[in-house]
C-alpha cells in the first residue's frame, strides 16, 4: 500500500502541475523538501544519541524491567505476543509514557528501540509483526496528556485561557487511541482469517 501511495503522490502532483502550470513550484519544492528531510535527520542525531545512551543505563540497571512489570496487566492485553519480561516491553512503555507527556524528543528513540526489539522477536523478517503494527497504531494516534506545542501557539495568539483545550484534547486523544487499537485488532483478525484459507 505504501508503494502505491508514494508513487501516486508523485504522479498526481506532476500531472496536476503539468496541467495547471505550477511545474516551477514543484521543481523548487522537490529539492527543498528533500533537504528538509536531511535536516530533520541531522536534528534527530543528537536526540537519538542522548536518549539511547540514557536508556542503555536504564536497561542495564534493571529500571526498564521494573517499569514494565508495573504496567504488565494492561500491556499484556495490548501486546499479547510479546513476552512480559522481554526488553521490548520496557521500551514500548517508555515510548508510550514519553508520548503521553508530550516529550516527542524522547519518544522517538524509545519507539525505534522498541521496534528493533520487536523485529528480533519476529525473527528479523522485513515484514512487520502484529505487535509492530500495534505499536505504530499507538504512536500515530498520539496519546498526549499535555499538547505543549499547541498551548505555546495559543499563548502567542493571545488566547484568554491557552490551556482550556487540554481537557477536550485529552478526551479526543483517548478516543483516537482506543479507536486505533480496535481498528488494529480488526485488521489483525482479518489477516489471520485470510491466512487460514
Amino acid at each position, binding site marked *: 500500500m505504501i508503494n502505491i501511495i508514494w508513487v501516486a503522490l508523485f504522479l*498526481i502532483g506532476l500531472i496536476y502541475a503539468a496541467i495547471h502550470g505550477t511545474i516551477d513550484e514543484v521543481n523548487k519544492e522537490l529539492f527543498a523538501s528533500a533537504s528538509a528531510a536531511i535536516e530533520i535527520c541531522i536534528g534527530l542525531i543528537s536526540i537519538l544519541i542522548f536518549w539511547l545512551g540514557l536508556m542503555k*543505563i536504564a536497561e542495564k*540497571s534493571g529500571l526498564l524491567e521494573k517499569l514494565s512489570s508495573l504496567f504488565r496487566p494492561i500491556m499484556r492485553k495490548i501486546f499479547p505476543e510479546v513476552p512480559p519480561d522481554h526488553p521490548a516491553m520496557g521500551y514500548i512503555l517508555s515510548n508510550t509514557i514519553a508520548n503521553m507527556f508530550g516529550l516527542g524528543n524522547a519518544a522517538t528513540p524509545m519507539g525505534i528501540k522498541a*521496534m528493533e526489539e520487536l523485529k528480533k522477536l519476529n525473527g528479523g523478517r522485513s515484514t512487520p509483526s502484529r505487535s509492530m503494527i500495534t505499536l505504530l497504531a499507538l504512536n500515530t494516534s498520539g496519546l498526549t496528556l499535555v499538547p505543549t506545542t499547541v498551548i505555546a501557539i495559543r499563548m502567542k495568539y493571545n488566547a484568554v485561557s491557552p490551556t482550556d483545550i487540554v481537557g477536550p484534547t485529552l478526551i479526543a486523544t483517548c478516543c483516537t487511541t482506543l479507536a486505533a487499537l480496535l481498528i488494529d485488532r480488526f485488521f489483525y483478525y482479518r489477516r489471520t482469517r485470510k491466512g487460514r484459507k
Partner: protein
Amino acid sequence: MGAVTVLSTWLLPCLIAIILLYGTLKKVPAYEAFVEGGKEGFSLAVSIMPFLVGMLAAVGVFRASGAMDAFVHLLQPLLAAIGMPPEVVPLALLRPISGTGALGLMSDLIQTYGADSFIGRLASVMQGSTDTTFYVVTVYFGAVGIHRSSDALKVGLLADLCGVICAVWIVSLVFG
C-alpha cells in the same frame, strides 16, 4: 491545568536524575553504558534518511503542484456533511501527512479566526490529539528496515479519521 504544565517541564530532568541515580546504585558503569547505547544513535539517524527524503519529497510535490488544494476542495462537502466547518477541512487532511505543514495551517487558522473562536479551538484540539501518521510509519519502520507497511498505514489513517470526528464532536459539545 497549571499543575500539568509544571509537571511536564519537570518530568524530563527528574527522569534523567532517576535513571542516573538508579544506575549508580545498581553499580552500572553509567558513563560507559551511555556511550555504548549512544553509539547506535548516529547510524539509526542515517538509516532513516532515505525513507524520510523519499516521503517528504513526494508530499512536497503533491502539495506544491496544487493537487493537495484540489483534493481538499473535492472532499470539503463530504466532511462538511459530518458537521465539520469547511475552514478546518484542509487541516484535517494535512494532519496525517505533514506535521510541520499542519502546524503552520493551525497557526494560520488561529491567527485568522482568533484563538478563542470555535474554529481556533477545534484546530487546536485536532492538532493536539493525533500524530503525523506518515512520519511515524516512515521513521519507525524505516529505522529497523521494514519495507512493507502491511496494514499499518490503513490502521493509522482510519484512526486519524476517528480522531477528527471525535475532535469535532467534543469541541462542539464543550465550546459549541
